């Protein structure tokens, strides 16, 4: 018996599919659009190929001093970054002691070893990894970098620099600001007028002032606030300033999450006979924190970028380290390379975090729709 064999349907005309149609629909779909395409294409053509040539094709990668770069001025001088890499990443102390460089390297490997399973979906024991990230990791990291507890030569906080210092400032700011921010956000929504007013004043005070003023304040005035004999070095002062500043922003992000919890959750928890703290810790915060993760990550991004301001009060963070390396006699005139390399490191972290927060946001969004 014959079975019905349908004729294969005709292929769509070439003008409706394929690259030509795509170009038509997306680049030349109207007069304005065509004009725009041409203008943008011209601009890109003008700037991108020379940049690629400068940054990659004719760039200098190897060598030990500036003679290589001077011989070939048409290309970027990545030799500078290459030679000064350890100094830019880990600061003057580890840049000068190649035998100790393994300490920050192990520290960062540990950090990423904990971070990656946290980001990847479906890792088991995520809670424990997160907990060790927040508690054990900082201690181990400090032991590694400082060196006293592990019997290595001591590198004091004032000797930390480069990306290492940027990372430490951002991490400490985030770590300490999180609990402070939770308390402040709870206080701001409290029913007790005195507590609420205090929290509002605190949050608005720090949010109204630029970080650079706060850093000036921390470096100039903080020593006055403590009795004689209590001495902090500049790094610790900057950490205190950054933590205060960051806690206000974290508090606002968490307040957004708290406000999004339906009232029924509070009432149901109260009806079950839970007191304020148990209600907050077991019912409200787990939900509120989850909702506010994107907001909190956004404050992380802002903080990570803002740590570069410590270079103004004279700390040798990533930006300042690259800049002072580019202003040293050996490498004078290679600012652009220094700034671009620094910018790339900052950019990778910030872009990564912002993508992550978008993914989380999307995930939370679908959850809400399912309910």
């Amino acid at each position, binding site marked *: 018996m014959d079975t019905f064999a349908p004729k294969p349907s005709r292929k769509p005309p070439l003008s409706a599919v394929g690259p030509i149609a795509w170009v038509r629909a*997306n*680049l030349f*779909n109207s007069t304005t*659009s065509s004009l*725009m*395409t041409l203008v*943008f*294409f011209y601009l*890109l053509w003008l700037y991108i190929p020379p940049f690629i040539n400068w940054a990659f094709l004719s760039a200098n990668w190897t060598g030990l001093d500036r003679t290589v770069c001077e011989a070939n001025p048409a290309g970027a001088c990545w030799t500078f970054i290459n030679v000064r890499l350890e100094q830019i990443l880990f600061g003057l102390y580890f840049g000068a002691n190649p035998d100790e460089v393994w300490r920050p390297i192990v520290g960062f490997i540990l950090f990423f070893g904990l971070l990656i399973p946290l980001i990847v979906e479906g890792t088991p024991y995520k809670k424990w990894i997160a907990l060790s990230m927040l508690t054990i990791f900082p201690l181990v990291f400090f032991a590694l970098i400082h060196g006293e507890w592990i019997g290595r030569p001591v590198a004091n906080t004032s000797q930390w620099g480069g990306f290492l210092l940027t990372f430490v400032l951002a991490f400490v700011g985030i770590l300490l600001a999180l609990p402070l921010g939770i308390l402040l956000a709870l206080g701001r929504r409290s*029913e*007790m*007028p*005195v*507590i609420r007013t*205090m929290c509002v004043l605190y949050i*608005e*005070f720090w*949010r*109204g*002032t*630029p970080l*650079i*003023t706060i850093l*000036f*304040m921390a470096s*100039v*005035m903080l*020593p*006055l*606030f*403590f*009795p*004689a004999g209590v001495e902090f070095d500049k790094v610790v002062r900057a950490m205190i300033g950054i933590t205060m500043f960051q806690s206000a922003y974290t508090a606002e992000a968490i307040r957004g999450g708290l406000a999004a919890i339906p009232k029924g959750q509070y009432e149901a928890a109260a009806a079950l006979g839970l007191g304020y703290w148990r209600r907050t810790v077991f019912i409200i915060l787990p939900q509120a924190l989850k909702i506010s993760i994107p907001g909190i990550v956004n404050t992380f*991004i802002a903080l990570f*970028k*803002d740590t*570069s*301001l410590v*270079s*103004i009060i004279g700390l040798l963070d990533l*930006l300042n380290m690259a*800049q002072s390396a580019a202003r040293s006699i050996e490498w004078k005139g290679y*600012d*652009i390379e220094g*700034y671009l390399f*620094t*910018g790339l490191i*900052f*950019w990778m972290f*910030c*872009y990564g975090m*912002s993508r992550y927060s978008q993914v989380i946001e999307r995930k939370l969004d679908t959850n809400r729709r399912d309910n």
Partner: protein
Amino acid sequence: MSDSTRIPLHRDPKVRAWVFQILAILVVCYGFYSIVQTTIDNLAARNIQTNLNFLTQVAPFNIGFSPFIDFKLGETTYWMVFFIGIQNTILIAVLGIIAATILGFLIGVVRLSPNWLASKVALVYIEIFRNAPLLLQIMFWNFAIFLASLPAPRQSVEMGAFYLNNRGLHMPKPIIADDVRFWIWIGLVTLIFVGCLRFARWAKHRFEDTGKPLPVFWINIATLVLMGYLAYRIAGSPLTFDVPVLGRFNFSGGGQIPLPLFSLWFALVLYTAAFIAENVRAGIQSVSHGQSEAASALGLTRAQTVKLVVIPQALRVIIPPTISQYLNLTKNSSLAVAVGYEEIVSLWAGITLNQTGQALIIIAMTIFVYECLSLTTSAILNWYNRRVQLTER
């Protein structure tokens, strides 16, 4: 209620709340008290006298840029230095806000354009500029690009009476030659402006009555420019121009936009525009598609749909976060310290602090300025949000 069921005092929420709050007040007060006390002791131990006397003293340093307040070395007091700092902060903020709004709007619209290339270019712009530290961007433009590529004053790029070099842009500065005639001109311009407003109102009425639109905006702009120039000639050209003249090392006379101001402005605008563009994109996307479909069903053209239907609704979503961005731009202008533009932080909390050593008062005054700016901004925001909410159902 029998005694056995009455809540014991230590379990009564009201009592507990009050005890807790009183405790909190005591702790905070004690904290403040001990900090103030230690500070006083420390100041005494270091022999620092904290008082306001220095404000009436004459500032011993030069200020290069003060467009509206006259600065004279050897005469201007610290009080005026403080106001010059505020003036320069407001100046960079206003210039930055205007440019960042325009650029941000443009990029936000291009981001949503159906043109693939344009949209991707806008996306790359946004992602590059908002994910790199602003300080780095300011330094990059100032030190690596402008300072390195612009010529010295003697080799300035000449554009008519404008000169561009690594100190900044020198340009002719208008000077009022005759007060009376100048005010006559201002009066005439005001009259023209009022006329334009009347015309706009008349055109609106006509549009509502007959449905015939007029290009009011362009007509008014053209009228203002042409009639304003005519009035200037009628008043007898009351302005003269002070043209910059090249001296041995630098220009003298004329107005100047110093390079630090320009670099700071440039970097602030590029950075803030990326955030504003995201606000604009989110705002336009928040207007549901049905709105523009309904508008085209009513026979509105695409331009009319955007102008009369989409933008007014999108603005409600766009404006609040954009006002916060304006505040951020103002606060970020404090990064002028890095390039040496003389606004409140670099002039007051930087130079003046180093000169006088009055850390407490100077930092407090600086913070006060920013708190005022931020309170003003949040007042505007609250007012706007309330107004918008009224039009919502």
